[in-house]
């Protein structure tokens, strides 16, 4: 039992590392542009499959392939934003939601058409675990945790230390005030959509390292990623990281008491309980 308690902790961090980047992307888009983007799960899928193609078919080393896949996903995200989403900027919350749902279906089916319904595996050798302070962990689990932390950290630095980040935060906090203060919104929107696509794709590659690539991987991750984004406080990247850990821990430790198929339900109960105490999420702004 004690051994399980110890090992489930590692599972929780691994799960959190794969979901946190996408949750951060959802959080960013909602924080700045005020709509939930349901297509971000599919950017995970696209990221995972692009990394597969670049590494397996074109022979790129996987880290480079992952970076290139994330950049490409960012560009796709940006391109769709500048064409479809830009047209409905002032139309309220419903049109962008519907657009994101449509985009979700399109991306999912494009992946099906190109790669089929079967499952694929990123070309990483399976490894037996190391023992690290009594935790057993494989090299790729460690890599996943580190990459996720570094990516979120980098996003945090961009938001806190750059002019662009300042503009993002200004628009998120108070759009009217930001506009009269001379913040140009369109470049900020563009930057944010690029970042969200990039982050989700990194999440997709990390998820691919832990399991198999399937056309449904993004769809399957969408709800937990949303739960994490809401729990962390919409618009807050670091909050997404912490919330991912909480949801991960709640899900894995629930295995001590209930069947694995209730994992996500338990995570949502924890989400609901925390929101009762902190309605805007852990690190969300007080209304």
């Amino acid at each position, binding site marked *: 039992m004690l051994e399980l308690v110890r090992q489930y902790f590692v599972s929780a961090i*691994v799960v959190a590392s794969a979901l946190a980047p996408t949750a951060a992307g959802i959080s960013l888009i909602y924080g700045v542009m005020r709509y939930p983007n349901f297509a971000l799960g599919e950017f995970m899928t696209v990221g995972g499959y692009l990394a597969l193609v670049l590494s397996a078919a074109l022979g790129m080393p996987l880290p480079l392939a992952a970076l290139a896949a994330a950049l490409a996903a960012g560009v796709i995200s940006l391109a769709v934003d500048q064409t479809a989403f830009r047209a409905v900027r002032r139309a309220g919350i419903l049109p962008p939601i519907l657009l994101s749902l449509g985009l979700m279906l399109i991306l999912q089916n494009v992946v099906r058409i190109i790669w089929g319904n079967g499952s694929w595996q990123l070309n990483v050798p*399976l490894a*037996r675990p190391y023992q690290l302070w009594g935790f*057993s962990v494989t090299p790729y689990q460690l890599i996943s945790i580190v990459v996720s932390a570094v990516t979120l950290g980098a996003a945090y630095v961009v938001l806190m230390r750059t002019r662009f980040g300042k503009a993002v935060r200004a628009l998120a906090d108070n759009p009217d005030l930001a506009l009269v203060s001379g913040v140009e919104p369109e470049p900020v929107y563009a930057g944010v959509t690029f970042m969200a696509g990039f982050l989700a794709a990194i999440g997709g590659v990390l998820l691919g390292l*832990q399991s198999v690539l399937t056309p449904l991987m993004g769809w399957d991750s969408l709800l937990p990623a949303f739960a994490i984004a809401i729990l962390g406080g919409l618009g807050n990247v670091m909050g997404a990281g912490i919330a991912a850990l909480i949801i991960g821990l709640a899900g894995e430790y629930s*295995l001590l008491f209930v069947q*694995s*198929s209730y*994992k996500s339900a338990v995570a949502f109960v924890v989400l609901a309980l925390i929101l009762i105490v902190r309605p805007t999420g852990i690190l969300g702004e007080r209304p």
Partner: protein
Amino acid sequence: MESHEDSTNPISRRRFTALAAAGLGLTVTAGAGPIAALAAGPEIPVGTLMPLTGAGGLFGQNMLKAVRAAVGQINAAGGPLGRKIRLYEEDDQTDPDAAVRAAKKLIEVNKVVAVIGTWASGVTLAVAPVCQASRVVEMSTSGASKITTVQKQGYVYRTEPDDTLFGRAYAEFALERGWKRMAVLGLNVPFTATTVGSFRRAFEARGGTVLSFDTYNQSQTTFRSETLKASQGNPDCILISGYEPDVTGILRSAYENGLHEKFLVPGFSVSETLIKNAGPAAEGLLLVQEGVSEGSPSYRRVASALGGSEYYSFAAQAWDQIQLVALAIEAAKSARGDAINRMLRAVSGPPGARVSSFAEAAPLLRRGRKVNYEGASGSIDFDADGNITTANFRVAEVRDGKIAPVQLVKGVHF
């Protein structure tokens, strides 16, 4: 005489079709008598509805090849009622919607008297009511227990063991191995409840203990914690009731956790893709496959028609399905769907002379004798619900990336 008949077949077919069209249908009844070797009527349209693409694609291709070869042999032996079987082939794409469209086309346009070869349970459940409404016989290789409910209404049969029988086969094999302690991981879908329930009853009734049974969802990020939990208490083996993607994930997670447990899985979850994706984690994996009647004359014919290098469990079933349809037509002296439905059970099981092909059975049936078809996939005796009463299974193991046979589990029944 038969080869002569074959060489003139196109002409006589056209002539007899013309005669029948002219209303001289009397030749049909005459043909069923002693001079049956003569083509005695229009061709009998039979539809194949198999997954040539999609998840079942690999299986469907071989099934179709087997049926074509079987029809070749049936027609060479004169065909049922002295008429040739004409195949209409459709691809169900392993997709219920596409399957229903194709089934309607087969029934309404091609006027088929039977639809054979549906593979996925979802496809069979979707197509069955369409066939029942038109009084067309439907035969599947699907395992879901829910199908029995549909079959109770007639016209629908399957050559695949029910999920319950799979559960018994797992228990049988585990006990034969001397395993007393098993852990179970199951994908949270209906077939898991049926299979694991039946495994548990059979295993525990004979002294086995199920240490843990956890159900999981397909949308898991990792199976790290689940595999650790299942390995608690050192089970002799862990049974996974799942599909390919989740079984792959579980095997990989177990390997990455440093576990050395044995795993037992259903044969339909294992493919080349799984063996490639799970790599070293798939080594030693035990799989329980729907069996064939190894060494039987029927299976030898299937294997030689398909090249003989693989294990043709679904193709053997498809082979048996078309043989049974041909036998039922001959026995019923009619190629109507309702007549076939009435005779299928009788020709599949006892009493009657044991036969392994249409060629062997046809002379007996024409003399009014009863036959009991012993097929390539097994004995194939349909019960009142259209299920096979006993099933054979084969246990195989993944060794050096190849599926190698281990042992047979024979005569598992309801």
